[in-house]
């Protein structure tokens, strides 16, 4: 993930040097490879770590923070945009995780998914309390069902720099929960099952949400192009 971030920052430079498309392919391949190997290693070590966490070992808690801190912070930052607020939520998430580690069931999800679930819920609870005065696109008034899959593919498979920029701007118009779901799906490579676990919804609901979010994004892009 860290690598992905650094690489993503470098993308800006590559873009200027007109080598953007080539580097994007390398970036995706490297990121997928790195993500898989990293996940495997985590699964092996997490079992031992969980046992130590259950015995309230402070070293284990430190290790949990070091290993999963970045993932959790990123998850929070997707929903809670203010840095200071995100830090506050981050502390709450880990304190809650330390307290309720006994309730974690290894058969249901990986440790990182369990932490992401806490982070997602804590972040949503936080912004609900704050009631941000931001209006997001409401999909009730737009006729999303009429949008064809082929039309969507034209936009979302177009790796034109302008289109990517447009999509990027359009993403800001989505509600934070939808932004989080679409990011978990496309950036974190989370499975539908894991996203459903994190958001505490059915996998079919998540699949449906993803489909609607894509269509909503398309509608926003089209509105911005006018």
């Amino acid at each position, binding site marked *: 993930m860290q690598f992905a971030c650094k690489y*993503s920052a470098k993308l800006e430079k590559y873009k200027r040097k007109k080598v953007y498309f080539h580097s994007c392919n390398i970036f995706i391949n490297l990121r997928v490879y790195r993500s898989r190997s990293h996940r495997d290693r985590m699964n092996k070590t997490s079992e031992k770590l969980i046992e130590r966490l259950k015995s309230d070992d402070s070293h284990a808690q430190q290790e949990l923070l070091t290993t999963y801190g970045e993932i959790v912070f990123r998850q929070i*930052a997707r929903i809670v945009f203010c840095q200071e607020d995100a830090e506050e939520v981050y502390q709450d998430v880990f304190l809650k995780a330390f307290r309720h580690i006994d309730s974690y069931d290894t058969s249901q999800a990986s440790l990182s998914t369990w932490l992401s679930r806490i982070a997602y819920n804590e972040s949503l609870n936080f912004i609900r309390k704050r009631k941000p005065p931001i209006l997001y696109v409401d999909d009730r008034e737009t006729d999303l069902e009429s949008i064809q899959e082929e039309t969507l593919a034209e936009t979302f498979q177009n790796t034109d720099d302008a289109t990517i920029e447009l999509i990027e701007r359009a993403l800001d118009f989505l509600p934070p929960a939808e932004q989080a779901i679409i990011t978990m799906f496309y950036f974190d490579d989370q499975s539908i099952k894991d996203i459903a676990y994190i958001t505490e919804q059915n996998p079919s609901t998540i699949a449906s949400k993803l489909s609607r979010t894509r269509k909503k994004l398309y509608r926003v892009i089209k509105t911005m192009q006018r």
Partner: protein
Amino acid sequence: MNEKDIKQIQEQDTALRQAIARREGRRPEMPAGLNERVMQQAAGSRRRSYSWLSIAASIVAVCLIGYTLLINIHPSELQNPSIAQIDTLKDASVIAASTTTPTQQEEPQTNVTVVTQSSESPLVAQVTAKQEKKPNVPVQQTEAEDSLPVYMPTDEAEPTIQYASVAIETDTAYKAPGKMDEFIEKMASYGRAEAGEIECLHSSDTLSMSTIYVFEEKQDVEVFDRLLRMAIWYDNTTPGYFLSFSQKQFLFELHDSRRGLKYLWLAERLQHHPALLHPYSTRYNLQYLVLSGVPQ
């Protein structure tokens, strides 16, 4: 959308993927020192939970110490059902001993109480050591505070009972017949009745001296009434309890199977001197028959 379609979309939406990757790349990095802050908070909350635990533990410890002290200081005052039950058993054994084996006067019941502290239960179990259990053990007679004979085992090797400590306790259930004598003495002192001696004849032709008081019949000293009140203070299940009362005569008999003595109090309203009363008391060994005979 099925899983296959979703996978396909995920792979094909390269533009969307790149847009999201750019956004993620612009996200602020996790600030340094945030994990340290979390650890400090975790340590603080742990300390807080430990302090609550220690407060709770100390409260429990104080309660336990208080409860233990209460038991040790005033064991007889507590309404402990287990102790009450043992007391009842003790009484029952006394009754049985006096009624079924009246010839065991030379081996009276002891009130030696063995207090054992069980490791499994915090309750203090009290077991009355009975003399019948140790027929061959030589015993040494000692005098307790209230001059009751207490038998202590002399054979230290006696392995019958394992106990932590031996405590000689006052038997609250025992109502000494001597109280009746004390009462008559006090009543005589109050009524200014002079004490005299009287000879009593036993079945074995032996004489014993007893005390006699002659009261003047006054309204403020109702001797018969007061004697009756004193007599009913005793439990009527006491061995040898016998009370006969009329306007002319008061007769009260008690057996003390612990000491092997028989007590008799008699008060008669004299016909020739209706103003005079003469309570009369004596005591015998239990096996003696008392010949009734009113002293003249």
